[in-house]
């Protein structure tokens, strides 16, 4: 019954370089650590503009939002960069809305304009 998360990474360039993380599967208490590690690795490599594509997630628990916050805090500590969310799937959108994160995260719906927004 263990859940899985797949993360594919792509590099895009708008006004600045943007790293897009395509998340697929389940982002929950079991898998959110994998997202944090991947983000750490990317931020450590000097890429600090992160766009998280949430369209492939069929489940996200509160641990997922906790991971977004942790990444956001790391970027603040880092002094540069930003995290934005892209195209959340319907169940993910519902969780984001219920927990009230819509006002505190930039949620984009189109890849091109999201990349250019950084």
């Amino acid at each position, binding site marked *: *019954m263990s859940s899985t998360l797949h993360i594919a990474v792509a590099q895009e360039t708008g006004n600045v370089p943007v790293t897009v993380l395509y998340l697929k599967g389940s982002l929950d*208490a079991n898998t959110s650590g994998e997202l944090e590690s991947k983000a750490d690795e990317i931020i450590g490599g000097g890429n600090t503009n992160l766009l998280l594509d949430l369209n492939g997630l069929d489940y996200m628990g*509160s*641990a997922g939002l906790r991971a977004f*916050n942790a990444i956001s805090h790391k970027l603040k500590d880092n002094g540069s960069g930003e995290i934005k969310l892209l195209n959340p799937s319907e169940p993910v959108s519902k969780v984001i809305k219920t*927990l*009230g*994160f819509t006002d505190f995260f930039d949620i984009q719906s189109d890849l091109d304009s999201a990349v250019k927004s950084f």
Partner: protein
Amino acid sequence: MQNINEKIEYLRNSTFLRAAPTATLNRLALSADILQLHAGDKVFTKGDEGKSMYIVVDGCVMVHDNDVVLKHLYKGEVFGEIGAFAPELRTASITAETDSVLFQLDQETLYDTLSQQPEAARSIIQALCEKERDIVHDVTESAVKVRVLERDMEIARQIQQSFLPDTLPEIDGWKMIGHLQPAREVAGDFYDFFPMQAQHRIGIVIGDVCDKGIGAALFMTLFRSLIRASSLTGEFQDWQGQINATNTIQDQTAIQTDPATILQHSLTLTNRYIATTHARSNMFASVFFALLDPATGELVYINAGHEPPVILNSKGVHQQLEPTGPVIGMFNEAKHRVESVRLMPGDLLLGYTDGVTEAKNLSNELFSEERLYTLMGNEYGPADALVDKILAAVDDFTGKASQFDDITVIAVQRQPD
């Protein structure tokens, strides 16, 4: 080290061959290959076919299974003997931790030596027995550690339980139920019912701290205590007021009796305290906090990012108390609207955590809001019967699947006139 005597000494110092006669060591020394490794070089990978045994001559190698490091091996230690003596695939991977030197003895040389020199066989059998004894020791030690951890977890569960109310308020015309079924590993659900004498109201809380495990359980105790303590400030002022009977304190008490102010004050204080003092932990909780006036049925509430509690009446689900602001503990500047409803005679308020709707069965399906709403849409009867019905339905649904999250349900019912 190319010198044969030096090689023999290295073999003699290894755990496997310390009892072997010099003739055996001499023979092995002549056929041993020397491997020079750089840090990070892989010797073999779990699942590879294994036909050699290795002795660490210098440096350090790690035994691992993907990212999990099982052991480090240093000078004189032996590995790969399982693959060398039995037709088994490698049971773990070996990678050089530092620059290292190894002796490699292949299967053919080992068998050849053993068949010709019984002393060598004796030495190796002895070493294998010693290794087995160490493994038994390690396994026993791990089993003891697991038992200690399980006991600690049980204590954590009991402590967490003690942060729930011992007794629920008993008020004429009202029935209140709270049930928290903890997950196997502790998690961060909580509920609370507490009387607020000065305001003639009952505080009702249901909450869920993000994520799971000990971290969530620790924060559950903090959220619950801050919410209760900050909303009872008026109580203590009232108590002091009786002693001091000063106008100033009476005035403060008067301010604190407004339910909307109490809710705002309590959740703002809790939110800012955790968002600033514990910012690094990135912990937050969804909380539904209501103050009920049992005399009138007025329920003043803030829903901070929690699954909407529902009000049921004879027609089924009558109203959902949607979030009036974000979760608490995360965003310092978060604002919450206060809303108010009235529970009429016969109405039932039901609050739950996502442990109910997101309970999973063995096919990984969620219990879902739809199933919960179907249960509530039918004749729901008394509060305790409905709570039992929901818990039984979740239990039936999950079957043999282990409970992944805490399951919490609260119910507040105004008895029909």
